C-alpha cells in the first residue's frame, strides 16, 4: 500500500521517458537509416516487380515505377500453379514441426536442466555437438533413414526429421535453468509429478523462451528449400519454396509472376514477424549468449 505512490511515479517517469525517446535524434540514425534503406530496396523492388508486365521486368535500367499496376499477376499465379495447395502443404509442415519442437524440446530440455541421470552431461554434449555438424553432412544419411521409413515424396519426410532439434533443446534447457528451483520443489511436495511440474509450473513460466523457439522454428521450416528439394518429387506435395522455382526455368524466368508468388509466400512470415517481433529479437539476443 505504501509503495503505491512510488509505483505511480515510476510509471510516470517511464511514460515521460518514452515520449522523449520518440523525438530523440541520435547520430546513430545517420548510419542506421541508410542501412535500413539498403535492406528495404530488395523488398520494394520485389513488390514493384510483382505488379509489372513481363516486358517491364526485362528493361534496363530497371524501372522502379510501373506504368500500370498489373494486379492480375497475382491471380495468374493462383491460376497457373497449385499455389493454394503448396501454401497448405507448407502450413501443415510448419505448424506440425513447430508444435513438435515445442513439445519434444521441452521434454528433453527439462530432463537436461533438472533431472539427474547417469551420463547426462555426456549426452548433452553429444546433443550440442550435432549443432556443429553442417546439414550437408547429415543430408544423405537422413535421406536414407527417411526412405527406409517410406516417407520419401510425402509431407512426412519434411516433418519427421525436424520434430525436435538440438537448438531448441539447448535454448529451453538454458531457460529452464534460470527458473527458481524452489517452485518446482514446492510443486513436487504439493503432489505434482515430474511431468506435472513441467506442464503446470515450468512451461507456463517459459513464455518468452517458447515463443522464441516457435518463431525461429517457424522461419526455418517455412523458408527451408534444400531438404524439400531432395525429398519431394510430386508437384502436389511441393512446399512454397519448391513451388516458387517452377516460375524459374533454365531457359526463361517469368519474373513478374515469380515475384508475385514470392510476395504471397512472405505474408505469413511478415505477419509473424510483426506479431512476435519482441520475442524474435530477444530470441536472437539470447542465442548469442553462452548462458
Amino acid at each position, binding site marked *: 500500500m505504501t509503495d503505491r505512490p512510488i509505483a505511480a511515479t515510476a510509471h510516470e517517469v517511464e511514460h515521460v521517458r518514452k515520449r522523449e525517446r520518440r523525438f530523440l535524434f541520435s547520430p546513430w540514425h545517420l548510419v542506421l537509416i541508410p542501412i535500413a534503406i539498403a535492406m528495404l530496396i530488395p523488398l520494394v523492388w520485389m513488390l514493384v516487380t510483382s505488379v509489372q508486365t513481363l516486358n517491364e521486368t526485362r528493361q534496363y535500367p530497371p524501372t522502379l515505377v510501373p506504368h500500370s499496376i498489373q494486379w492480375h499477376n497475382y491471380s495468374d499465379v493462383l491460376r497457373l500453379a497449385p499455389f493454394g495447395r503448396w501454401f497448405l502443404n507448407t502450413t501443415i509442415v510448419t505448424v506440425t514441426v513447430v508444435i513438435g519442437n515445442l513439445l519434444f524440446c521441452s521434454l528433453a530440455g527439462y530432463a537436461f536442466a533438472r533431472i539427474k541421470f547417469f551420463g547426462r552431461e555426456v549426452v548433452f554434449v553429444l546433443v550440442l555437438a550435432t549443432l556443429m555438424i553442417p546439414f550437408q553432412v547429415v543430408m544423405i544419411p537422413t535421406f536414407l533413414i527417411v526412405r527406409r521409413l517410406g516417407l520419401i515424396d510425402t509431407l512426412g519426410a519434411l516433418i519427421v526429421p525436424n520434430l525436435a532439434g538440438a537448438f531448441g533443446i539447448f535454448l529451453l534447457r538454458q531457460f529452464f535453468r534460470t527458473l527458481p528451483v*524452489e517452485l518446482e*520443489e*514446492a*510443486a*513436487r*511436495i*504439493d503432489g*505434482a509429478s515430474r511431468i*506435472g511440474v513441467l506442464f503446470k*509450473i515450468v512451461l507456463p513460466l517459459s513464455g518468452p523462451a517458447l515463443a522464441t523457439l516457435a518463431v525461429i522454428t517457424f522461419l526455418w521450416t517455412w523458408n527451408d528449400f534444400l531438404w524439400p528439394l531432395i525429398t519431394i518429387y510430386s508437384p502436389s506435395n511441393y512446399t512454397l519454396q519448391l513451388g516458387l522455382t517452377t516460375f524459374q526455368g533454365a531457359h526463361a524466368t517469368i519474373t513478374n509472376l515469380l515475384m508475385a508468388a514470392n510476395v504471397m509466400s512472405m505474408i505469413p512470415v511478415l505477419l509473424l514477424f510483426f506479431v512476435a517481433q519482441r520475442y524474435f529479437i530477444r530470441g536472437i539476443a539470447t542465442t548469442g549468449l553462452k548462458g
Partner: protein
Amino acid sequence: MADITFDHVTKAFSGTVFALDDLTLHVPDGEFLILVGPSGCGKTTALRIVAGLERPTMGEVRIGDLSMNGVSPRDRDIAMVFQNYALYPHMTVFRNLAFGLKERRTPKDEIKRRVGEVSAMLGLDELLKRRPAQLSGGQRQRVAMGRALVREPKAFLMDEPLSNLDAKLRVQMRAELKRIHQQLGITTIYVTHDQVEAMTLGERVVVMSAGKAQQIGTPQEVYRKPANLFVAGFIGSPSMNLLRGSVSGGRVVAGDLTIPHGDVGTQDVVVGIRPECFTPSTDGRPTVEFQVDVVEPLGEQVVVHGSVAGSNAQSGAEEFEELPMAVEGSRALVTAVFESAREPSPGDRMRLGVMPERIYLFDAHTGDVIESSGGWASS
C-alpha cells in the same frame, strides 16, 4: 499427524564433505522442533531430507513408522514453507492455495471449503484473486503458510520462513505461527539461523554445527545448561563472554578474576559468563576490572562493550557474530548488560561483580561443559 525420526542420517557431498554427520533425533507427534545453527551447519539439508528433496547418503528418515528412503516428495504427505516462499507466479492466490489439493484430486467443494477456512484464518480473503507479484512481502509469507496449512499434512517443514520479513512483521508472524501451532498441533520442523526465533518458538531446540547436533533440549536447557562451548557461544544475545582460565588450588583464575571452585580434573578451562551475570554492585562478590568502550542504551537495559584483563576463548560460533573487534595486548573483550540506571560512559574504568553461582566452566581442550560447574545447572 505423525512423529518423525532421524536414524543415523548422514549426507555427504562429493565424498568427504559432510553436510549432515550421523544425525539421530526423534520428533514426537505434535512437537514444534527448531533446527538452529550458523549457515552451512546442515540444518537445511536435514529438512530437505525429510521433504524428500535430498537423499541421505546413509541412514533413514521415518515418518510415522514408515521408512521414507526412496519415497518421492509427493507421497510423503508433508508440506513445506520455503525461505523465498516459492509461490507460483502465474497463479492467483486462490490457485496457489488450491494447487496441492487439486493435485491430490480433492473434490471441488472440498477445495473451496478448505481454501476458505485457511484464507479466513490468515486474513487472505481479500487477496484470493491477486497474483503473488501484487502482494507485499508479509502477504506473500501468509500465502506460503496458507499453502502448507490447507493441505492438512502430517508435518510442516519450514525453512527460515520469516527471514525475508522486516523486523516488526517478523515478530508478529512469529506469534502467529505459535498460535497456529497451538491450534492445530501438527508436528513442525522449523529451520532458522536466528536464535531468538529458536528460543521463542521452539518446544525443543537442536543446536547444530558442522553437520552434527551439538545439543538437543528445551530453549531453557540450551540456554541454561549449554553442553559445550559452541552452544554456549551461539545461544544467547548478546552472546556469552568466554575467557581463558585455569583451575588449581581450589579456585578458578581468569585474568584478574578469581573465583573459589573445587578441582575439576583439568587445569585449562574456559570460563563462561553471560552478559547479564555481571553486576556493578560488588558487595562480597568476586570482581574484575572493566574498561568501558561502547555503551548501547536499549531503554530498560544498557549493553556495555569493553575489555578486562585476560584473553578470549573461541566457541566456534564467533565468525557468525557481528562483533569481534581488535583487542590490544593481553585484554579480553567482554560484554555486560545492566539496568539503565547504572549507565556508564565510554572510557570509564569500573569494578564489576560476578555472580559466582552463574558462571560456566568448559574443558579448554574438548570444549565440553564441566558438569561440576555451578551456573544454573544446579537450579
